[in-house]
């Protein structure tokens, strides 16, 4: 069962399809009232919230300035705690490392917590192709796994799926359960997932989790969940694999506390996630439970390039999802339309770096630059500025004269005030006449994109400059 292949180049048509998808629209309508509102309440309840955003940003910037050294320190301490540490330059390398660990363990059943990195590298498909039975244990990820979809949100992967569709999916896949059972409520659906997945937790040979943060001073991984699936995944099997990316490291636990104070609040409006676990190495000799081996896989996959690029600030991201919770574009079309593992504003900046600008060019274009994302980002990533940079790059690379023509004409006129005023006067006068009777135009031949869904105001007929010159007689400089 291959996972869905990302298709950011199909954004435009995906977006239109998404606008017409009533089930999706129904799900998206909840976003402002749910996650966004909760974040606002959490911020209101913590006076230090804004100051902590600056602290978070500074911690991350300091780490990025010294990423090599902190990764070395992390590795040393992780090794000292008994973990194995692996480095993977590419997605395939990471898949191979994990596949080998599973093979050497003689694994058959693998449980997996939510990990955006695993989506990025296509781990699920790779492991399944190698013959391993892999089960997503985060409920949202489990749902999209069954539906053979990509997650549509970094924090809430199945946010696009209605409860009635989840019921249909469960009925379709949980064939062993009694067909006449009632699973029409969220409680019943959760209860069923709990029952089905419990056996997997217990029977797994290998458990794979992500990590929200890595702590250099102790060689630890911090994993944050509300369900507890991460803890069951990492505590029950013989082998625990932490799959994470190189920019997740922070220096000390003090830095961890600061970032934890803004993570859950930004993501879901909780004071803290229900289960925040600091994991260091495998079980100790006297421990009655816990994995015998702990492997940490550090993935690069383009991040070292990002570090030396003008998009470096995007590496501060702590994957909270706040930017997409507040984005008017994401709120209109959901995550799948982006055709990428990472959607919303963070996806618009990250995806072109990961898959190339030509495939992903539409993503940074599809923004109103309203700036709300920057406002809510817990680590102050300048998302609008970064999207603008991608637009600059796209403009420079765009050889199509057609695309640049309108802008070039405008710019040429704007640089020549006298010519601008003449051209403007004529155009405005014509449109004013055309729109006089109604006060607006319902069809604009050269800009039908506007008038498809909106009327275009009729200009008042004369330019301000022309009237001013007449009334005040001069003022030209």
């Amino acid at each position: 069962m291959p996972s869905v292949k990302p298709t950011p180049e199909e954004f435009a048509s995906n977006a239109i399809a998404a606008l017409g998808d009533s089930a999706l629209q129904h799900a998206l309508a909840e976003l402002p009232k749910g996650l966004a509102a909760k974040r606002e309440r959490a911020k209101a309840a913590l006076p230090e919230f804004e100051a902590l955003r600056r602290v978070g940003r500074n911690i991350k910037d300091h780490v990025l300035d010294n990423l090599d050294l902190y990764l070395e320190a992390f590795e040393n301490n992780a090794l000292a705690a008994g973990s194995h540490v692996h480095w993977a330059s590419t997605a395939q390398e990471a898949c191979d490392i994990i596949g080998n660990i599973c093979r050497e363990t003689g694994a058959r059943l693998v449980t997996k917590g939510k990990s955006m990195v695993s989506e990025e590298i296509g781990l699920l498909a790779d492991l399944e192709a190698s013959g391993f039975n892999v089960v997503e244990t985060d409920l949202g990820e489990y749902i999209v796994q069954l539906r053979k979809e990509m997650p549509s949100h970094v924090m809430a992967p199945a946010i696009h799926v209605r409860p009635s569709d989840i019921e249909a999916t469960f009925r379709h896949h949980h064939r062993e359960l009694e067909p006449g059972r009632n699973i029409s409520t969220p409680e019943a659906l959760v209860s069923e997932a709990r029952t089905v997945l419990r056996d997997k937790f217990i029977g797994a040979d290998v458990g794979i989790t992500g990590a929200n943060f890595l702590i250099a001073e102790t060689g630890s991984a911090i994993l944050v969940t509300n369900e507890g699936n991460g803890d069951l995944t990492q505590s029950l099997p013989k082998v625990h694999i932490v799959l994470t990316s190189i920019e997740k490291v922070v220096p000390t636990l003090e830095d961890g506390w600061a970032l934890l104070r803004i993570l859950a609040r930004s993501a879901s409006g909780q004071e803290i996630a229900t289960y925040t676990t600091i994991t260091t190495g495998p079980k100790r000799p006297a421990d009655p439970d816990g994995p015998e081996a702990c492997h940490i896989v550090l993935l690069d996959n383009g991040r070292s390039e990002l570090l030396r690029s003008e998009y470096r600030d995007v590496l501060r991201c702590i994957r909270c999802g706040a930017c997409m919770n507040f984005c008017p574009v994401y709120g209109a079309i959901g995550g799948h339309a982006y055709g990428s593992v990472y959607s919303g504003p963070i996806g618009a900046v990250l995806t072109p770096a990961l898959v190339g600008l030509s495939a992903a060019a539409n993503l940074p274009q599809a923004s109103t630059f309203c700036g709300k994302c920057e406002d809510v980002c817990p680590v102050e990533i300048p998302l609008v500025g970064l999207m603008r940079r991608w637009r600059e790059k796209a403009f420079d690379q765009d050889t199509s004269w057609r695309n640049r023509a309108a802008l070039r004409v405008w710019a040429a006129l704007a640089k020549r005030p006298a010519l601008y005023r003449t051209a403007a006067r004529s155009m405005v006068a014509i449109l004013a006449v055309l729109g006089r009777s109604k006060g607006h135009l319902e069809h604009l031949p050269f800009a039908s994109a506007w008038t498809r869904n909106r009327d275009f105001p009729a200009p008042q007929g004369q330019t301000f400059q022309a009237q001013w010159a007449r009334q005040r007689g001069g003022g030209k400089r």
Partner: protein
Amino acid sequence: MSRDAILARLRQALPAGRANGARRDAVNARLASPPKHIIPARVNRPRNELIDLFKSFLATQNATVLEVTAAAGVPNAIADYLRSENLPAFARMGTDPFLATLPWHSAPGLTRQSGRADPDDPVGLSRAAAGVAETGTLMIASGAENPVTLAFLPDTHVIVVGRESIVGSYEDGYALVMKEFGKSHLPRTLNMISGPSRTGDIGGHIVMGAHGPRRLAVLIVGEESSNRVAR
């Protein structure tokens, strides 16, 4: 080797170029002496208010908060709780010394077993070395004393915490846990637990008991009038 290639690429990206001595010194200094960051002002309050804050967060986060004034009352408090919730009179626990020396004979109906959790165990019993008032969070170090599976496999998790171990911030809580843990390194897991398991993945509706325990009961042990705090 990917490790060397990645580190080399990272070093190329950095303004200083190579890992020069000054940069390494600065990093080591920061690791050795980490800066203290902002601690929420909400933890600066008198002890009884701090404990009230701890309790109120836990209640909001759907945990049941119980209190007993003395250790001697713990077994009955647990037995009463389980009975009131129609739960089996059973508790799996580790070798935690505080739990071990409780007068269990005073609650003869309560069956106890020790060790890691069995999947069929209905109730897990742990002791937290610290309770953190800033968000209603319990900190538990894993090991033979408090096996980690007790906190995740059973349907119901009961955590006992000493009143004097309730502190304000994560920083204070961590210091307390590590002091008790007594080793120079961390346990396999330091679990920070703030409520029962939950999910919002079904249409945004919050439902308890996603994979971890459906129920969390936190039993605070100690005299209410006592403002003693563990150091």
